[in-house]
C-alpha cells in the first residue's frame, strides 16, 4: 500500500481538533483520490448544515476528548494497545471497522465502562478515571448496544431515569429536571408517546426513547454503540438525521460506532477506521474512505464512487461473484 494514504493522515491535535467548518460533502476538491471527486452542486443537502450559523452553538459547548496510549483488555485478552485518538469537538465522529476490531471496546473505554490497562482517556485534559462517576456522566453519555427496557415501563418514566447524574439525596426532582425531560422528548419527537409503554413501541420509536433518555442526561459528548442496528433503512436514516440535528443545533459532540460505511460517510464529519485494535486511518470521510483503506481495514474489494445524493464517497462492495466491467474499472 502506498504510504501517503496511510494512517492518521491528519495527525492528532491539528486539523481534526477544530470543528470541521467545511463539511466533507460540500467540498468540491481536495481529494487525494481521483475516484472520489466531490460534487458540490448536490441539491439535497440537509438545510441544517447548509447554514454556517447553525454551527455557532457547536463552538460554544465543545469538550475535548482524547485517548492517549490507551490500552484496553478483557481479562488477559488485549483488544486495544497503545491507541492515540483525538475526537474533534462538536463534530460527529463515526468509528468503523471490521467485526472484532475493537470499535465497541474503544467506545466503552472512552465512556469509562472499561478500566484501561494502560494509558488513559482525557476529557479537557483531565483523566476521566479520576473524575467522580456522576460528574463524568453529566458530560459524557453513552448508549450501549441493546439496552433493556424494564417490562411495563412508560416512555416518560424511562426518560426520567436519565436525570440520575443530576440528582442526589439532597437535590430532589425539580423544575429543571422536568424541563430537561420535556426537552429530550421534544427533540426526539416522542412527546406524544410519553405515556405509552416502551415494550409496545416499534424498534425505531424505542431507539428514539433511548436517545431521549441519553439527552435528558444532558451530556455534551454522546457516545452511541451501533445506534441503528436492527432498524430498517428508513429508521436508520431517521435516527442519524436526529443525531445530525442534535449536533448541528446543540453542538453536541457525537461519537458513534457504525457498521454501514455509506451512512458513516454521509453523516460523519470525522471518520475513524479501526483495524485489529488500532486506529488505521482518521480524517474526513472523503480522505479516509478510499479503496485501498477499505481493502486494508475490511479485507474487502470495493469501488468507491461519488454518492449521487451527498457527493461524498459511496462504497460499493464487489464480492466474489461480481467483477467490475472493464469500462468501469478503477479510475487512474
Amino acid at each position, binding site marked *: 500500500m502506498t504510504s501517503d494514504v496511510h494512517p492518521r493522515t491528519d495527525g492528532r491535535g491539528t486539523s481534526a481538533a477544530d470543528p470541521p467548518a467545511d463539511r466533507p460533502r460540500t467540498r468540491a476538491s481536495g481529494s487525494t483520490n481521483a475516484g472520489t471527486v466531490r460534487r458540490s452542486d448536490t441539491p439535497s443537502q440537509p438545510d441544517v448544515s447548509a447554514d454556517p450559523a447553525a454551527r455557532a452553538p457547536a463552538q460554544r459547548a465543545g469538550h475535548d476528548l482524547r485517548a492517549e496510549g490507551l490500552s484496553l483488555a478483557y481479562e488477559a485478552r488485549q483488544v486495544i494497545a497503545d491507541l492515540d485518538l483525538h475526537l474533534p469537538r462538536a463534530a460527529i465522529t463515526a468509528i468503523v471497522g471490521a467485526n472484532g476490531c475493537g470499535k465497541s471496546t474503544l467506545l466503552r473505554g472512552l465512556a469509562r465502562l472499561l478500566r484501561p490497562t494502560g494509558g488513559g482517556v482525557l476529557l479537557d485534559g483531565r483523566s476521566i478515571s479520576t473524575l467522580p*462517576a456522576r*460528574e463524568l456522566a453529566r458530560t459524557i*453519555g453513552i448508549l450501549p448496544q*441493546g439496552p433493556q427496557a424494564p417490562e411495563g415501563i412508560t416512555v416518560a*418514566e424511562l426518560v426520567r431515569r436519565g436525570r*440520575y447524574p443530576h440528582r442526589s439525596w439532597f437535590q430532589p426532582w425539580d423544575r429543571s429536571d422536568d424541563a430537561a425531560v420535556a426537552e429530550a422528548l*421534544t427533540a426526539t419527537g416522542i412527546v406524544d408517546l410519553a405515556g405509552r409503554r416502551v415494550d409496545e413501541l416499534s424498534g425505531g420509536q424505542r431507539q428514539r426513547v433511548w436517545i431521549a433518555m441519553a439527552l435528558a442526561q444532558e451530556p455534551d459528548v454522546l457516545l452511541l454503540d451501533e445506534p441503528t442496528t436492527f432498524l430498517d433503512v428508513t429508521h436508520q436514516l431517521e435516527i442519524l438525521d436526529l443525531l445530525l440535528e442534535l449536533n448541528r*443545533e446543540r453542538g453536541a459532540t457525537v461519537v458513534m460506532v457504525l457498521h454501514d460505511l455509506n451512512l458513516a460517510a454521509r453523516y460523519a464529519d470525522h471518520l475513524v477506521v479501526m483495524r485489529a485494535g488500532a486506529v488505521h486511518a482518521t480524517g474526513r470521510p472523503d480522505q479516509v474512505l478510499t479503496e485501498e483503506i477499505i481493502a486494508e481495514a475490511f479485507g474487502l474489494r470495493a469501488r468507491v464512487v461519488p454518492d449521487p445524493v451527498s457527493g461524498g464517497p459511496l462504497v460499493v462492495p464487489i464480492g466474489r461473484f461480481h467483477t467490475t466491467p472493464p469500462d468501469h474499472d478503477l479510475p487512474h
Partner: protein
Amino acid sequence: MTQTLRPATAPAPARTLRARVLWLGIAAGVLALVIAASLALGARDVPLAVVLESLTTPVPGDNDHQVVLQQRLPRTLVGLLVGAALGVAGALMQGITRNPLADPGLLGVNAGASLFVVLAISILGVTAPAGYIWFAFAGGALATVVVYGVAALGRGGATPVKLALAGMAITAGATSLLTLVLLTNTTALSTYRFWAVGSLAGRGAGGTADTIAALAPFLLVGGLLAFACTRWLNLLAMGDELARGLGVNVARARGLSMLAAVLLAGSATAIAGPIAFVGLVVPHLIRPLTGPDYRWILSFALVLGPALLVAADVIGRLIAQPGELEAGLVVALLGAPVMIAIVRRAKVSGL
C-alpha cells in the same frame, strides 16, 4: 427546536401517582382485614369487639383476652415482620439479579441458614429454638457473602447470571452437606424438621419477643438500606453498562442491595425458619399495579408481603382444626397456583 419546546410540562405517565396511591390504600385495607382475621380466628373464634377490648382494656383473667394477647398478637407481629422482610428481600433479589424467578433462597440464604442450624443442633447440641437465631442469621449471611464473592470473580464482576449460578452452586453444596449430617444424626433430624417447616408460631415460650427484639436492628437497617437502594435498582434494571454510563457505581450498588436483602431475609429466616414463595410471588403480584419502579415495588411489598404470610397463617389455623398447618406450608400450597396463574397470564421475563 426552541419554538416547539414546552418546558416543565413532562407529560404524566399512564400510571399516575393517584392510581398507585389508590392501589396502595387498597392493599393496606386488605392487610388490615388479614390482621383482624389473624387476631380473631383460630381454634377459638373471638369476636372482633372482644379483640379490640383485649387490646385497649385487657382483663388479666379473661380467656379470650389471653388467647389474643399471648398467642395471636405475637404470631401476627411475627407474620408482619417476616412477611415484610421476605417481600422486600424478594423484590431486591429480583432486581439485583434481573431474574424474575429470584427469591431470597436463590442466593443461598435459606441453605446457609439451614446448614448452620443443623450444625448447631448436631455439633453444639443446641436444642432451644431461641438458640438457633444467630446460627440461622450467620449461616444465611455467610452463604450470601460466599455467593457474592464467587460471582465477583472473573470478567465483569458480580453479574446477574453469575450471581444466580453461584447461588445455585452454594445452595446445592450446603444442601448436600446438610443431608449428610442429617443422615448420620437422627436426633438432629427430628429437631431440625420442626425448624425447617417455617412457622409463625412462637419458637418456645417468650422466645418470640426476644427474637424480634434481637433482630429488630437488622430488620430496621436492612429495610432502610433497601429503600435507599431503589434508585440504583431502577437504573441497574436497564443493564449494567447503561447504569454505569449514568454514573452509578454498579459494584457498590449491587453490594449494598445484597447487604439489605441478606439482612432482611436472614432475619426473617432466623425468626420463622425458611419460608419459600413469599419473596418470589409478592413482587409479581405488585408489578402489574405499580410498573417497574422499585420505590413503589418495595412500598407495596411492605404491605402485601405481610398480608400474604399472615393470611396463610390464618388459613393454616382454620383448615386443620383442631391442629394447625404451619404458615410456611400453606404459603407454598397457595403460592404454587398463584405463580402458575401469573406465568400463564403474562410473560414474567424481562425485568
